[in-house]
């Protein structure tokens, strides 16, 4: 049977592509831990296999008519089955390709970045572990499989954030990331169980089909959607669980580029795409989602405006852009969200990898320090950063402009104009904070003499590492420019998804692109005035009001609030009270009872101790009592 064979070859490609990194992980952990070169080779080889298979799958199913699904049974026990397999449709194919491409580029880059690190093998093992779990997450046909790999990417994130374990803050950040996302995950888990109880299975295609409305009462559906959205909030670092992501920057820069900007944190948005029709069934859920996305976008933007740490700035911008994608999706724009996810993956990975080159060279994250040490002399990374920031700011004709445009059009179609206004404000703020580090690094007040700190790293080995790192930058920069022009093919490709789903089409306002470009340019111009123009004092307008600047820099005191809740309410509050309850109340009363028993025993022993005085006393007392009893 020809069709069977074709299906099998697809299946084979998918299996090989997704599981190759896992094999690498096991091999490195078991055998090649002490041979860094072999480990890196294995890891890169498997990343190449994954990339090739993703491209083959994407190419082979470019004209996919209906989703391809394969499930096998993973037996838990007699009557409980959990289906495992693959679901290939435009949404998952696109995401799979994004993950594979960036995964490959970042691993290649890491050859240079991580060279000489004592944990070189461990690093590549963990990256492979991540790649495997992320790809399996992407192609999950059931929510259950998705949840399992959802947790596993969280696990890889925990390992990789705390990769430099001797840095205590790295361990701290890893724990924080894991716990905060877990908070969301548990909500999601509950939502998943709710769906299971009503629908009877967790097949994503069935959850997305209209029959769910018949099986779940509306309030249950809303509850489930909100609970699952809780998982998205955790994973995509949205308000109020957003503070783990900036801390996650403690990990190596390529990790930030792959996990904490372009793919893993985008898994939350991807889940929304996956369950897009399901979320749209509940208007409450989409409204809440819209609000959360908007709040996160604006909040993170303000935080990015005052940060001095280059990676943190890009981390805040990630939160902000993920919020922006969620806004687009909640407004009913599947393509809007997916397209921005794709362009964002390219330009944000680019920004982080560039930041990695600077940090690798100069050993600091502070933008003012970097500027003073002469980052502007590193031409290629600097140019790439400018391209990435331009795309982030939404300057035409870079890809970010087009993808933001799609989202804005969707938002403009909403009855309430407040979302569009908020989004436009976001565009302005984004342009401002994206170019702040650029101008600071381009125009430092003073530069060291050109030969004191040579831009091009010295030594052949150093130069080789530098070239390895620069290679992926150029490719990503190219993608950042090119992706914007692929809008139409991508739109056609994704049109096959969820056919029959009618959503409110975005308004086609002719003035919107101009306003957006104007706002973005305005934001850049303001930054230039404050940071770039000759003689600029290099302080932002926010810095002029110390209270607000501090407020933003302290992340709106969210971290402090959580810390205070944990310290005072939980650690010193409930937990301490409960621990006291154990020792004082429960043990106290038990010990009291036993002491009482011992005392009673002593007393009884005393009575029978055979001392003649007591005997006589007892007899006397007994006689008195008896006579009292008898005579009265």
């Amino acid at each position: 049977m020809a069709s069977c064979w074709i299906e099998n070859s697809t299946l084979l490609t998918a299996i090989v592509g997704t599981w190759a990194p896992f094999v690498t992980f096991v091999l490195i952990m078991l055998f090649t831990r002490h041979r860094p070169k072999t480990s890196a080779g294995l890891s890169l080889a498997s990343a190449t296999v994954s990339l090739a298979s993703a491209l083959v799958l994407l190419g082979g199913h470019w004209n996919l008519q209906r989703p391809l699904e394969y499930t096998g049974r993973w037996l838990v026990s007699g009557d409980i089955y959990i289906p495992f397999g693959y679901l290939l449709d435009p949404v998952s194919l696109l995401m799979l390709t994004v993950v594979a491409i960036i995964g490959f580029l970042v691993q290649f880059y890491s050859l240079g970045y991580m060279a000489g690190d004592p944990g070189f093998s461990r690093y590549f093992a963990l990256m492979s572990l991540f790649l495997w779990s992320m790809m399996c997450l992407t192609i999950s046909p059931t929510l259950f499989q998705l949840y399992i790999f959802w947790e596993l990417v969280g696990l890889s994130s925990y390992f990789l954030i705390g990769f430099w374990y001797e840095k205590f803050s790295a361990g701290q950040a890893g724990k924080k990331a894991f716990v905060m996302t877990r908070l969301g995950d548990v909500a999601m888990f509950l939502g998943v169980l709710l769906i299971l109880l009503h629908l009877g299975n967790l097949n994503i295609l069935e959850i997305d089909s209209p029959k769910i409305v018949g099986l779940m009462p509306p309030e249950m559906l809303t509850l489930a959607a909100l609970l699952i959205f809780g998982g998205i909030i955790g994973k995509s670092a949205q308000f109020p669980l957003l503070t783990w992501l900036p801390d996650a920057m403690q990990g190596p820069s390529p990790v930030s580029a792959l996990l904490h900007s372009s793919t893993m944190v985008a898994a939350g948005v991807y889940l929304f795409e996956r369950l897009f029709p399901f979320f749209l069934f509940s208007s409450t859920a989409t409204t809440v989602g819209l609000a959360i996305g908007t709040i996160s976008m604006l909040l993170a933007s303000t935080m990015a405006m005052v940060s001095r740490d280059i990676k943190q700035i890009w981390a805040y911008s990630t939160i902000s852009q993920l919020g922006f994608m969620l806004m687009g999706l909640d407004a009913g724009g599947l393509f809007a969200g997916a397209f921005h996810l794709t362009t964002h993956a390219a330009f944000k990975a680019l920004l982080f990898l560039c930041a990695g080159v600077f940090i690798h060279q100069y050993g600091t994250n502070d933008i003012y320090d970097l500027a003073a040490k002469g980052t502007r002399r590193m031409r290629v990374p600097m140019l790439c950063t400018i391209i990435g920031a331009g795309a982030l700011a939404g300057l035409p004709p870079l890809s970010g402009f087009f993808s933001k445009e799609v989202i804005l059009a969707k938002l403009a179609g909403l009855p309430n104009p407040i979302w569009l206004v908020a989004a436009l404000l976001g565009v302005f703020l984004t342009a401002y904070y994206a170019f702040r580090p650029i101008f600071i690094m381009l125009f430092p007040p003073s530069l060291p003499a050109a030969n004191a700190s040579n831009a091009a790293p010295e030594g052949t080995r150093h130069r080789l590492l530098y070239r390895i790192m620069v290679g992926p930058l150029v490719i990503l920069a190219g993608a950042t420019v090119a992706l914007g022009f692929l809008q139409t093919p991508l739109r056609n490709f994704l049109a096959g998804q969820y056919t029959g789903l009618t959503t409110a089409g975005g308004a086609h306002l002719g003035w919107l692109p101009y306003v957006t470009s104007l706002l973005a340019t305005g934001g850049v111009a303001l930054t230039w005035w404050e940071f770039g123009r000759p003689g600029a004092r290099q302080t932002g307008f926010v810095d002029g009001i110390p209270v607000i600047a501090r407020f933003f820099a302290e992340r709106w005191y969210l971290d402090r609030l959580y810390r205070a809740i944990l310290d005072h309410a939980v650690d010193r509050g409930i937990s301490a009270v409960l621990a006291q309850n154990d020792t004082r109340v429960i043990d106290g009363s038990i010990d009291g009872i036993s002491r009482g028993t011992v005392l009673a025993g002593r007393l009884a022993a005393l009575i029978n101790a055979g001392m003649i005085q007591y005997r006589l006393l007892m007899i006397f007392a007994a006689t008195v009592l008896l006579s009292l009893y008898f005579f009265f």
Partner: protein
Amino acid sequence: MMNSPNFPILSVITYLPLLGILVICLINSKRHDLIRWVAFLTAAVTFLVSLPLYFRFDAGTWEMQFVENIPWISQYGISYHMGVDGISLLLVLLTTFLSALAILSTWSAVDKGVKGYMISLLFLETGMVGVFCALDFVLFYVFWEVMLIPMYFIIGIWGGPRRIYAAVKFFIYTMSGSVLMLVAILVLFFTHYHATGIMTFDILTYHRFGLPANMQFWLFLAFFLAFAIKVPMFPFHTWLPDAHVEAPTAGSVILAGVLLKMGTYGFLRFGLPIFPQASVDFIPVILILSVIGIIYGAMVSLVQDDIKKLVAYSSVSHLGYCMLGMFALNLEGVKGSILQMINHGLSTGALFMIVGMLYERRHTRLISEYGGVMKVMPVFATLFLLVAFSSMGVPGLNGFIGELLILIGAFKASLGYGLLATIGLVLGAVYLLWMYKRVMYGRITKEENKNLRDMTGREYAYLVPIIVFIVWIGVYPKPFLDKMDVSVQHLLEVMGQQRTVMLDVPEHSELRATHAMNNYEQYAADQGR
């Protein structure tokens, strides 16, 4: 010989350790290593002998298997009746498995009175296996008490500084519970005698004996106290941290791994089938106490500065899940509960072993005395993390499967309790990772920690087998769950015959949930085609 149907395999498993004790008695008490080896080999052989139980166990029937039934004191209807079903099978295997590894885990740490120590451990094994196999009340009670004594000595003689307090506390708590149970057993016996004129202590007979409801209430209460102390359920748990902290590593491993399961096993073997009506009446109480236990244990773990105490309190939380699943009284819940008993035995047993490894190196269990250990003990760090993840229920490891089944069961029974119980999932990650971070991450600040040895061969030998099972159950739990399937179904059917109402959930929602699950099964079957 062992393949013949009449081979008394259960008795052999139960009494093999006694044979080991006999041999140890003949050895000069100064020859420590020889004693250790004899003890370990005895336990290892016992485990090997117990393996055929698994392979020859017929998962297709709920009837007791490998039955030995010999009249013992026939004028009172007491018999020597042993047997296992799908509920006790895995617990017996867990006992023999952990006993062997536990002996290995306290090899050189105990160097005084090695002879007595090893004798106690082996004696304990006999008691534990006996409890899980006994099908006669008197026999059960004998094993139940037999097991107390060696544990008392293990804590009281080879324990830490506050060992006497801990041992006495452990003994009094357990004893007061079991005395109540003894009274209840006697009442049960005489009730049955008056009703039918037959004297019997046979447990299976009582499974079919319909007690009047008011009687069920009081007798269940007595059993409940005995088992709730053992589990331990909130608020009867305070003996546990003390006993754990003071006990030597092997004691903690056995205590957490097996002894606590006797409480949960007791509910399954006695509470539910003999007192079905009372069990249903008690559901709200037990579910509330379980949920309190889950959150309470986790909360208190959060503020412990002693690693071992932290792990001990986490047991309170985990056993809360076991009770929650069991009293959801549906297939998923009960199976999850049994699996979680095994999981807890493996994960928490391994955690105690890990604490023991740290203690043997540094002779302190205070979290603040460590820091940066990952640098000097990388392999240990990896295995530690794996076990910690297993304990907090990360997918791919055993804890997840157990918690998943329990939560599905709890959800089907009652939404509210299920929701509350998930708080424990978050807290579990918090206290374990918090502890791990403090012990493992950062720079080494204490001079003493700079030259710690990574895992030794003996340590690999007892930790790796546990980890194999942790991963195995996590990835492919079918071989374990299948064995208990029919027995659990039967248990629920027996209960269902006398059960009238089910929880505080409206009838229709229960029906709908069941209906949905049927759809799911149908769907799953379709997928497989």
